[in-house]
């Protein structure tokens, strides 16, 4: 006897397509964006990483934004601010 049942799952009707962005090569002369996700002391970790990058490379500019909510996506306005960056530094977790 054939008993038909339905699939309850979905990995997302809107399938995310992730492609690796082209590598910037050297960071000399590049603009980097930094997204502070708003978690306690995230700025300390990010600052440490940025200072390391600054000592290794001649960065053209560093743009910081801080997300207003730790659990919502970055607002469009902040994304726009970072649009002209060659790469963006971010992180997850506490």
């Amino acid at each position, binding site marked *: *006897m*054939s*008993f*038909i*049942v*339905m*699939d*309850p*799952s*979905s990995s*997302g*009707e*809107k*399938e*995310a397509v992730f492609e690796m962005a082209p590598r910037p090569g050297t960071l000399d002369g590049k603009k980097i964006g930094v997204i502070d996700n708003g978690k306690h002391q995230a700025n300390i970790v990010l600052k440490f990483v940025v200072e390391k990058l600054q000592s290794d490379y001649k960065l053209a500019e560093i743009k910081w934004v801080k997300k*207003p*909510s*730790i*659990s*919502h*996506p970055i607002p469009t306005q902040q994304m726009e601010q970072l649009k002209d960056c060659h790469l963006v530094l971010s992180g997850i977790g*506490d």
Partner: protein
Amino acid sequence: MELLSNRFSLDDPMVAIDFYYEQGWTDGLPVIPPTPEKVNAMLEAANLFPAQIIGEIKERKRLFTAEKVAINAVMAGCLPSYMPVIVAAVQAICEPSFGVHGPTASTGGAGILLIVNGPIAQQLNITSGESFFSSTSRANATISRAIRLLLLNVGGNRLFDRTTIGHAGKVMCVAELEDSFWEPLHVQRGYEPTDNTVTALAVEGPNQVQNHFAPGPEQILLTFADRMASLGSFNLLRDTPFLLVVCPEHLRTLKDAGWSKSDVQEFLFNHARRPLSDLVKVGLADQEKLVTGEEMALAVSDPSHILLIAGGGEAGRFSAVLPGWGSRSQSSPVTKKFTSKGFDDG
């Protein structure tokens, strides 16, 4: 109706139960195999077509179609008459202000509480009395389960949930014990008494608070306030919403003294606090925050952030305090109205 999901042909229902376990589609308990007939019955009960979009979690790129909601509702053991409640609950948690991604991924392990108001609660036998959080009512158990399965199988919770400890009430469904003295939650939030609504909020597990001896309202509320401001709670200094479930015996004391919900909210706001120095002592706040040494850490930042409902059995002076999750800017309670038949955007 033509369903769009993949389907499987199995030997019989018992084989199907094992199959769903093998596929990793359960919550640890056996599921009701979702046949096309059962799924269609769910859709018809809420006047939905399969591809209709009920909600989405944008940041996870997860979409909840009516069909997927219906399939998971069947698996949970729901009756078709529950479907309008379930659909409204999905709509509520998908509101941006609920911010479902946060509480369901957080190490903080929040659950989702669904509070049903309106005539539908009695019609569907959703418990508001005895065994408030441990009801054996089919509606309480399966409506909450449907949301849980949906978040696991479609919402990405299996991938994203990083709960450290959590609690057994990952999703809970209750009804408010609507009392003529205390304005029901949905009326406070702008709906008519005869409207059917579901209010979703992210919460920690219920903290039972007893006071069997208090002669008056203040003593009962001071007991609640103490729990609201306990050390190690996640809400101090965070602007977190709160829910309190006040049992009938406690409510009677408040009623006899003429205390409205706003009186209670005001009192709790003023008393649910503790010296900031307590938090500094255990590393929960920085020393720099202490200037005068008299600073207080508040459980909530405004009386209106404390939601109050009556609920529980007639006997016993046990109420419950449920802290919310994070801060209100990350996740706020959301109320959705629905009709007993049909999809309602109200």
